Structure formats: C-alpha cells, structure tokens
C-alpha cells in the first residue's frame, strides 16, 4: 500500500506540490494525469524516495520513508520498479547488462540463470534477441521497453511508470499499454502510471487521479473522471487551450 499524506514540495521559490494526499491499495492500478509541468514526475519520485518532501509523509506498507537515509531506502526500493520518462538506460552497458543489473547486484544467480531470465523478460517486452545491442542503437520506444524490462526482471511488488507512452506512435503505445496490463496481471503488481495520454489512462487505470494547480484535483473511476462536468477536468480531457489565452495569445502579444 502506498499512502501520501499532506506532501509539500518546493524548488527554490516554486511550490510544486501543496498538500497532496492519496492512497493506493495493493494490486490496484492508478493513472495520474495532469498537464505538462504540473509535477507528476516530481510526485512519482516522492513515492520511491528519490525526492524528499519539505513536509508530509510517504508511507509504503505503513512505513514512513521520508526520514529514512539512502541506505535504508535501498531496502524499501527492492519492492519497487520504476520506468523513467526518458528511459534512463545505462549507456555504457549493453541491453542485457542493463536488464540484468538488479539481478547481478542484489541476487546470487549463475550467469546461465541470469541470461535465461533476461531473455525471458525481453521476450515479454517484445524485444527478443536484442541483448547485445547498445542503448544508443535503439529507438525511443525500444528504449522505454528495455527500461520496463529492467524494472520488472526482479519481480517487484510496485511498478511506477513515468509517461510510458508519451512520444510513441499509436501502435507502439497500444502495445505498451497491453504490456503494462500484462505485467500487472502476470506479476500481481501495484501499478502507478503517470501520463498525459488519455488513452493510456483510460486503459490501464482502475482509478484516475488528476493533478492540477499543485493538488490532486479529481479522483475516481475512469468513467467518473472522464465524464466529470468540472471545468478544469473538462478542459484537460477535451484538450482545449485556456479560452483567455487562445483568444489573446496570438503572436503579436
């Protein structure tokens, strides 16, 4: 279970999160949506302890991770897998070394067993036989899928996805959505997907949280949120720019 209580986060004088609270049950899959730059990635990084809030608590299975130091956090993070917005693959390593990283570091397996698990998980993300490639040789979509393979190989209980489908063509996006569902059902993981792609949110979220103006603005089942009459939600879902900005915001101004 993931629970955030009254999170406040500032960078210099910019407040990114202000009194953000939510709760995600075990095995649940939640989509966090919101406009670009509203602090979704920052929120996700708080859940796994990469960033610390200025105020508030993050509870993972009832344990507050905010006061923990980096070494204590390492233990908590073994339950987590995270897929980064920009994939964040280790560019000095091959695909296989990237994917096998956590196994090599934290588990004592034979080389053959490691190779077998790498092959299996690469198969799962539809990239069989890419073991010896370099991350630089891969396309954006392939990199995201390698990032996903790296995050799920050690079978974590919670997987966090930061914009897994942004910037990919609809077909690859679709296959990644299915992959997220497959990982969820196959490994029974708690899934948190940050996205501004409505299709992804609709498909993988059993519940949708919408961030707006430093807060969780709306929360509920996808149907509820997507059909909400709230103007802020409507504007985001329908994808129209600010009415004021669009009438006055021409090049001359």
């Amino acid at each position, binding site marked *: 279970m993931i629970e955030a209580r009254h999170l406040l986060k500032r960078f210099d004088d910019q407040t990114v999160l202000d009194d953000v609270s939510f709760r995600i049950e075990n095995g649940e899959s939640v989509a966090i949506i919101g406009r670009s730059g509203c602090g979704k990635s920052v929120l996700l*990084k708080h859940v*796994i302890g*990469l960033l610390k809030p200025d105020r508030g608590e993050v509870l993972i299975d009832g344990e507050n991770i905010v006061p923990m130091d*980096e*070494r204590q*956090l*390492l*233990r908590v*993070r*073994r339950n*987590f*897998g*995270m897929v*980064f*917005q*920009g994939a*964040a*693959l*280790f*560019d000095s390593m091959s695909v296989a070394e990237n994917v096998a*990283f*956590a196994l090599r*570091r*934290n588990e004592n397996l034979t080389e053959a067993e490691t190779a077998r698990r790498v092959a299996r998980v690469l198969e799962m993300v539809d990239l069989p036989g890419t073991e010896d490639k370099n991350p630089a040789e891969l396309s954006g979509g392939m990199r995201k899928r390698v990032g996903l393979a*790296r*995050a799920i190989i050690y079978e974590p209980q919670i997987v966090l996805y930061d914009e897994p489908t942004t910037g990919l063509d609809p077909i690859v996006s679709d296959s990644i959505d299915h992959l997220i569902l497959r990982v969820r059902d196959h490994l029974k993981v708690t899934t948190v997907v940050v996205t501004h792609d409505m299709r992804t949110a609709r498909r993988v979220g059993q519940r949708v949280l919408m961030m707006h103006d430093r807060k969780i603005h709306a929360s509920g089942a996808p149907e509820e949120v997507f059909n909400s009459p709230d103007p802020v939600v409507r504007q985001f879902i329908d994808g129209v720019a600010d009415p004021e900005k669009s009438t006055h915001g021409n090049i001359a101004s």
Partner: protein
Amino acid sequence: MNLSVKQTLAAWLAGLGQITLLAREAAAALLTFKVAWRNLIYQVYFVGVKSQTVVLITGAFTGMVLAAQTYFQFHKVKMDTATLAVVGVSMCSELGPVLTALMVTGRVGAAIAAEIGTMRVTEQIDALRTLATHPVDYLVVPRVLAGLIALPLLTAESISLGIAGGYGVGVGLYGIDPVYSWAHMLKYTGDTDLSIGLIKALIFGGILTLVGCYKGMTCGVGAEGVGKATTEAVVAASITILISDFFLTLGLERLLNAL
C-alpha cells in the same frame, strides 16, 4: 565585492564539507565490502594503465630539465656531482607526486566528473537508486579506490623515469662523473623523501577522484552543467592538491623524522 568574497569562501567551505561527507560515506561502504569489484578493476585500468604515456613523459622530461638547470648552477661552483642528488630529492618528495597528480587530474578527474555528471543529468543515477544500488558504492568507491591504488604506482614510475632522465642528461650530455654523482644521490635521497612522495601520491589520488565524483554528482542541468562540472573538477582538484601539498610537506617532514 566583500560580499562576493564571503559567498565564495562560504561556498568553498561548504563544498569541502560535502566532499568530506562523501569521503566518509565511501569509507563506510569500503569497510562493509559493498564494492563493485568489476568496476574497480576497470577503473584501475582506466586511471593507471591509460595514464602511462602522460605520466612517463612528464616524469622523464621533468627529471631531464631539472638536471640541466641544476647542472648549470652547480657547475659554476664546481659541485657537478651533486646534480643528481638534487634531482633525486626533488623528484621523490615534490615533483614526482605533484606533477603526476596534476596530469592525472586533467585526464581522470575531468573524465570522472563528465561521466558521473552525464549520468546525473540523464537520470541514470536516479535509475541506479531505484535498482537498490547506492551511487556511492557503485560509482564513487571504485573510482576513489582506483585513485588510491594507481597514484602511488604512477608516481613511483614517474620518479624512476625522472631520475633516469636526469642521469642521462647529467652523465650523458654534460659528462659529470657517474660513480660520484650516483653515490651522492643515494646518500642524500633518504627513505623519508620517497615515503613522503608516496604518501602524498596516495592522498592526491584520493583528492582528485573524490573531487571528480563530487563535482559529477552535484552537476547542474544539461550539457552546460556537465561542462561546468568538468572544468570545476579540474580547477578545484588542482588547487586542493597544490595547497595540501604545502601542508603535507611540513607535516610529513616532521612526522617521518620523529619516527
């Protein structure tokens, strides 16, 4: 003006404090053997083997020019055979360790800062952390350890080549008496001088790798941040090496003579 001096000083002190904390963290990791051994071997190769050319050329030519300059002065007062003694003492206790460290800083300190800085701006360090790996264990410890192992060895090489070069210039070029000057050199270059040099090399190896790691880990955003971190690593490490060299000279002299 006054304010900016104060700020610079404060920032410098804060940086030193952070580096000390980093060193403590690295030492703690080392004591629990949480070291990435494969990385260590690669780093020793990178710091040690790949610095050979630079260090050997520096050592040899420093020894040669030092012998020539000393000979010019000593020849006037008919002390030709003391030339190699000067070369030996200076190479062992000062020029060997300091010049080696400065050359390696330019190569390795810069590379470390650039590599770790790039990893930071592309979120690879965050990725490490999510994979339950402490960046200090995985990135800092192998590099610092490699610096501690490689620098004394590189310095020893540089000292040897410096003395050999000095001998070549003195005996070969200016025809000073080989037997006397060799005996003088052995007489005046004590174990203390060599120990001072190697201890300094060890400390400089720690400084240049730690500063490189620190600048990389605290690098700013984007390509500009990485570039700045690289420059700062070289400047900060060089200055720290030169300043600490002075205090090390005074301190080690006392310590080793007291023993």
